[in-house]
Every structure is written in C-alpha cells, then in structure tokens.
C-alpha cells in the first residue's frame, strides 16, 4: 500500500511541476485555445469540426508563416460536450501563451451559457458561429459574445421561409402543422420563442417535441408524429439524435423530404448511418455546404501533401470540416484586423474583441482567402454581433448534399424585438449597463 501512496505523491509532484510552470513559448506567438470533443456521444460530429479548425491554423502557420508573422500557437482540450469539463478547459487555457487566449470557441451551447459571464470578466471574446445564445447578437449587452453568421433565431426564420416557399407563399402556412423535434438542452430550446412568434404571425400550428439527451430512443416521439401528421418536422438535433430521427421517420413512413434539419443536423454523419432511408432529407446550411473550394487546394498542398493533416484526405470538404475552417478563418481575420490597430504582435483578448467588432469581410477579401462560394460578406458591429444572417437549404440524395434553394435572409424585423427584449432581461438580471453603440468606434 505504501507503493500506492508513493506513486500518488510522485504523480502529484509531476502535476505541480508540469501544470503550472510557464510554457517555454516563443514570445511572438498568438495563443488560441481549441475546445473540442473527439470522444463521447457527440464525437461523431465534434471530430470533423475540430479537424477543420486545427488544419486551418496549421495552414496559416505553414503557408503564411502566421498572421503577419505572428505564429498561431494552439492547444486542444477535450470537453466531451460536457459543461463542467468545458469550464475546466477554459480555465486551463485562458491565460496560456504570451498574451492569453485570443478568443474561445466552445462548440456547445451549454458551455457558451456557462462561459458568457466568465469571458466578459476575463475579457476574452467567445465566438459561437451558428450556435450559442441568440440574444447575444446584441453587442451592447453581450460585449464579448459573437454568434457569427447566424443565431438559432435566424435559423428558425430561414427554415420557415423555406417551408413557405415550398408551400407556395407565406399565406399558405396558415392552418398548417409544423413540429419541432428538438434536443432537450439549451441548444434545442433556443429556437422555440422565435418559432412561437412565427407561428403567431403566419398562423401555423406549432408543436415542440422534446428528445432527451443523447437521443437514442425516439420511438414514442415518432409514433406521436405519425398520429398528429404534421406537414413538416424541423429537426433540431446533434450527434446520434439526427440519424436516429431520420431512421425513425423512415420506420413510421414519414416522408424524409418533409424533414428540415437545422444547420447542425445537416452533415455527413447525420445521414450516412441511415443509409438509403436518408435520401430526400433536407437541412439548412450555415451559408457553406460540403465540397472543396480554393482554400482546400492550399490545405492539400501545404498540409496534406506534407502528411500533417489531422484527418484522412478524403474527408476534407465534409460539412462540419468546412465549418471548422470557416470558424477558424473568422477568428484569424479578427486577429488580423486587430493587428491593424494594435500592432503586429501577440494581442490580448480585449484587443481581438475590437478586431471582431470591426471585422468586415467583403466578397473580394473572401475570394482572396479562398472561401469564395462558401461564405457571403460579413460585417460585424457593436450592435450586430451576428455579422450576417444568410442561409440556404440542401438535400441529401443518398450520396451527397445538393443545394436546392437560393439564399434566404433572416427577417430582421421579427428577430430584433425578441433580441432586444431577452437581452434587456439579461442585462437587468446581471446588472450590466448596456454600451452606447453610437459612441463605439
């Protein structure tokens, strides 16, 4: 037994020595933490995303020698999609590197909620591209949250727009039944208030149907759907819940082309387990879809040709991989923007926040970056931390995703009052004095 005690002591000594000694890093490096999940029930979706992020940072370092010469230093921390582990990872990584974390990117709505207050205190921006708190679009209250390219409320609106178009106009929505099959967590619950607003406006009957984490058992939900016969079912799932939903839909013979997934329910791992049964399934796109673009050529040349890629070469170009790329790119561009003001050196989170808030990506710049065809222009400001709210719809034909719609733009006039209302409540609860966006530069 003395042996155990000694081993524990050695381990503890190793910890105190290792974990808290300052990393011997070069001083001209910008530290970026990566919160990822490559294990656990959501690994199937978390891994390709993390691969995209890692590969893009490597590309910047290999191809450009960093951002204006400042190399990106990154470290991954495994959260397994669990909130408490996410908080631990954040605390572990937030002050690494010469200037601390540039920004953080949790890829979990639950972790975003837990970190919203902490990041504001620590002055580290939290980028939640296509997820996170929908009310955090209001930068006056949420100075450090950036739900870039689309919140869940934008997603809900775009989904309804598409359904209206398929039905032949908004007036056709009246009296229709639309159900929301959602992951019972902050992630799945976020769109509900927006959908209620939309249901009231267009007069359709809206039924939310919760699915308990992780979503392997959905039989009763689908039996209920079979009985209610809704015209459309919105799928707001993540991980195994998506493929299970498609399979159960097939089992109760619910037409797959009446299923519309959110942009987190529209990747390859969501449809492939269902095989042929998934054919016809539709989902929103967070602007980009699957496929290869000019940036992928660079990735193949500078990363995969050298054997430094983090996945199989055949998997670059998958939906979630591309989302990882886009996310990393926006972060890098924010740092670049901040460097214009604060100098070409490692920056603090507060400085990067300025860069994010003043980030404008034009079509020309997006083309330069190799993202042409993946993204539309982005323009972030103090009052609009979302930057863009476009979406398209894609359909799985059994082998690949096909884009089947034009661009939609979420309806500002519906979302804005809800954002103002909910964010004001948050400000009151947390005693935050909203910034005056007119005075921000």
């Amino acid at each position, binding site marked *: 037994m003395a042996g155990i005690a000694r081993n524990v002591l050695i381990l503890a000594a190793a910890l105190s020595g290792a974990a808290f000694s300052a990393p011997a890093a070069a001083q001209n490096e910008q530290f970026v933490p990566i919160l990822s999940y490559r294990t656990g029930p959501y690994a199937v979706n978390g891994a390709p995303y993390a691969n995209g992020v890692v590969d893009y940072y490597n590309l910047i370092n290999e191809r450009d020698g960093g951002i204006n010469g400042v190399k990106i230093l990154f470290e991954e921390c495994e959260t397994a999609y669990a909130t408490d582990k996410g908080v631990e990872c954040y605390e572990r990584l937030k002050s690494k590197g010469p200037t601390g974390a540039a920004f953080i990117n949790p890829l979990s709505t639950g972790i975003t909620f837990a970190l919203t207050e902490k990041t504001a205190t620590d002055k580290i921006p939290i980028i939640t591209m296509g997820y996170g708190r929908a009310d955090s679009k209001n930068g006056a209250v949420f100075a450090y949250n950036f739900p870039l390219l689309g919140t869940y409320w934008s997603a809900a609106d775009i989904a309804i727009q598409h359904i209206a178009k398929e039905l032949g106009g908004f007036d056709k929505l009246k009296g229709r039944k639309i159900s929301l099959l959602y992951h019972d967590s902050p992630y799945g619950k976020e769109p509900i208030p927006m959908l209620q607003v939309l249901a009231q406006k267009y007069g359709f009957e809206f039924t939310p149907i919760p699915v308990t984490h992780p979503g392997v058992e959905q039989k009763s939900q689908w*039996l209920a759907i079979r*009985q209610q016969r809704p015209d459309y079912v919105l799928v707001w799932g993540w991980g195994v819940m998506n493929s299970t939903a498609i399979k159960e839909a097939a089992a109760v013979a619910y037409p797959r082309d009446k299923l519309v997934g959110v942009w987190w329910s529209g990747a390859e791992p969501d449809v492939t*387990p269902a095989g042929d049964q998934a054919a016809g399934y539709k989902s929103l796109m967070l602007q980009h879809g699957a496929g290869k673009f000019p940036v992928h050529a660079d990735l193949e040349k500078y990363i995969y040709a050298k054997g430094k890629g983090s996945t199989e070469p055949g998997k670059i170009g998958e939906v979630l991989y591309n989302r990882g790329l886009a996310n990393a790119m926006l972060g890098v561009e924010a740092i670049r923007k901040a460097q214009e003001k604060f100098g070409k050196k490692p920056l603090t989170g507060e400085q990067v926040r300025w860069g994010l808030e003043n980030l404008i990506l034009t079509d020309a710049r997006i083309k330069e970056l190799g993202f042409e065809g993946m993204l539309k222009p982005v323009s972030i400001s103090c009052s609009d931390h979302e930057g863009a709210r476009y979406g398209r719809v894609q359909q799985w034909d059994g082998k690949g995703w096909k884009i089947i719609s034009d661009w939609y733009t979420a309806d500002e006039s519906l979302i804005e009052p809800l954002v103002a209302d909910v964010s004001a409540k948050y400000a009151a609860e947390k005693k935050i004095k909203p910034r005056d966006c007119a005075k921000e530069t």
Partner: protein
Amino acid sequence: MIAFGQFLEVLIGGLMSGVLYSLVALGFVLIFKASGVFNYAQGAMVLLAGLALVRALDLLVANGFPLWVAVVLAIGFAAVIMAATAWLIERFVIGPLVNQDALTLFMSTIGVTFVIEGVAEMIFGSDVYPLRLFPTDAWFLFEGLFPGGILVNKLDVWGALIAGILVGGLAIFFQRTKTGRALRAVADDHLAAHSVGIPISWIWFVVWLVAGLVALVAATVWGTKLGVQFSITFLALKALPVLIIGGLTSIPGAIVGGLIVGAGEKIAEVYLGPSIGGGIEYWFAYVLALAVLLVRPQGLFGERIIERI
C-alpha cells in the same frame, strides 16, 4: 376506431421496444445470478461487441469476402474479443474482489466500463459505423380495419424473435447442461459449490463469456437500429429499471420487465406526456420500478430476500 388503432400501435411498438431493452438486461441478470455482481459495464460490453463486429465486417467486405462469409467470420472475431474481455475481467477484477460487498463490486464494474470504453474506441475508432444485418422498414397491418394500418417495425420483430430464442437457449443451458447446473450451484452458494469441486473461476469466466455473447447479440440488433457508436453505452441505464421490475435474478423476469417497461413508458409518453411537458419516458420506467419495489422488494420474479441475524 382510429383511436383504438393508434392505441394498439403504441402498445405493440412499446412491447417490442421493451424486448430490445430486455436483450441488454439479460446480460445483467446472468452475471448477477452467478456472482452477485451488478454489472454496470454491460452497456460498454455491447459497444465493444458491436464495434468489433462492424469493424471486422467492413474490413472483410472491403477485402472481397462474400457477405455471408464475412458475417460469420466477423461474429466469430467479436466472440473471441468478448471471450478475451471475460477472461481479463474475471482474472484481474472480479476474481481478486471475491467476497467484497455488493457496492464495491458495483463500483469496480464502473471502473471496468471506463476501461472498456477507452480501449474499444482507441482500437476500433469513435466514429459511427452503420450495421445492416436486419431489415428496418415497417409493416402496416390491418390497413383495411384502421386507416393507415398498424405500424410494426420489422427490426423490432427480429429483436423479439432473437430475444425469444436467446431466453429459450439460456433456459436449456441452465437446466440441461453440466456447466449450466454448475452455474446455478455457484449462484446459490459459491463456497459450497467450491467444496464439491466446481472450479469457481472457470464458472465465472463462463458467465462473463455468456454475458459477453448476449451483449454481442444485443449489439447486432441495436447496431442495426442506431449504427454502432458510443451512445450505445447509454442503453445500460435504460435496461436498469427493466431488470429491477423483473427481479435481478430471473431470466424470464428480464423479458417480462422489458414488456412492462416498454409498453408502460410508450403509452405514458404518447397519452400523458403532452399534457405535462413531454419527455416523461425518461423517468417513467424508474418510477414504475420504484412502485413495483414497494410492493415486492425483490422484483416480480426475484428470489425472496430472507434476512437473519
């Protein structure tokens, strides 16, 4: 008439999915019966068996083996993996922990769960791997009688058939074979069994092996249903109320418990759920189990617990 048709549909669907839980619960019962261990790792064992099966299958098919040969070989491979697991668990965990109290044994199987999950994902990968051994589409019965018919999923029927065969097979194994009788002797009193010359560690190995094979069977059905992936381990928690209701020591109890849980929770969810917020099947089975325990503390078919000073 429509309402009755729908009720029938929910009832049948519930009974069937309950049987699928029973497939997992059976493994628990076997081990508890023979060694008094409440094996939390059963869910992880289903994952391991499924991953071994599907990865071997994919590899063999990719190398040009005909499908049926590949299936047989892959099942053989997975069975070998489960045998190795059984041996390792008996040799390094359950053997050394003999005579410890039930709680310690239970916690040690959680430790085993971590190890199995880690090893399985490390060797076989943590992606989702589709498995298609059974048809997954549905029959629509009595379409003339009810509009839309009554939906019955073919996979569920296969699952029920397999569960029936499994229970029959296990019953014969326990009643008719020498090893089976030895198993029952060990379950009754392992010291007495030991003293009449039954090799205890061999018997425990056999029990864990059989539980591993039951996990493999469960993996073929659940893998077809969900695709083989990490979430399969959550089945352990769905199987717990099933075996509590049936009784920890009864094999038919696992099936009956599954039927009760399946039918109960689906009917509750569909008919009671919408009025109180939905998602009640998450806890319904457990509350049902609690209610059954209050009446019969050893479950419906469990052996009576007799206490002496």
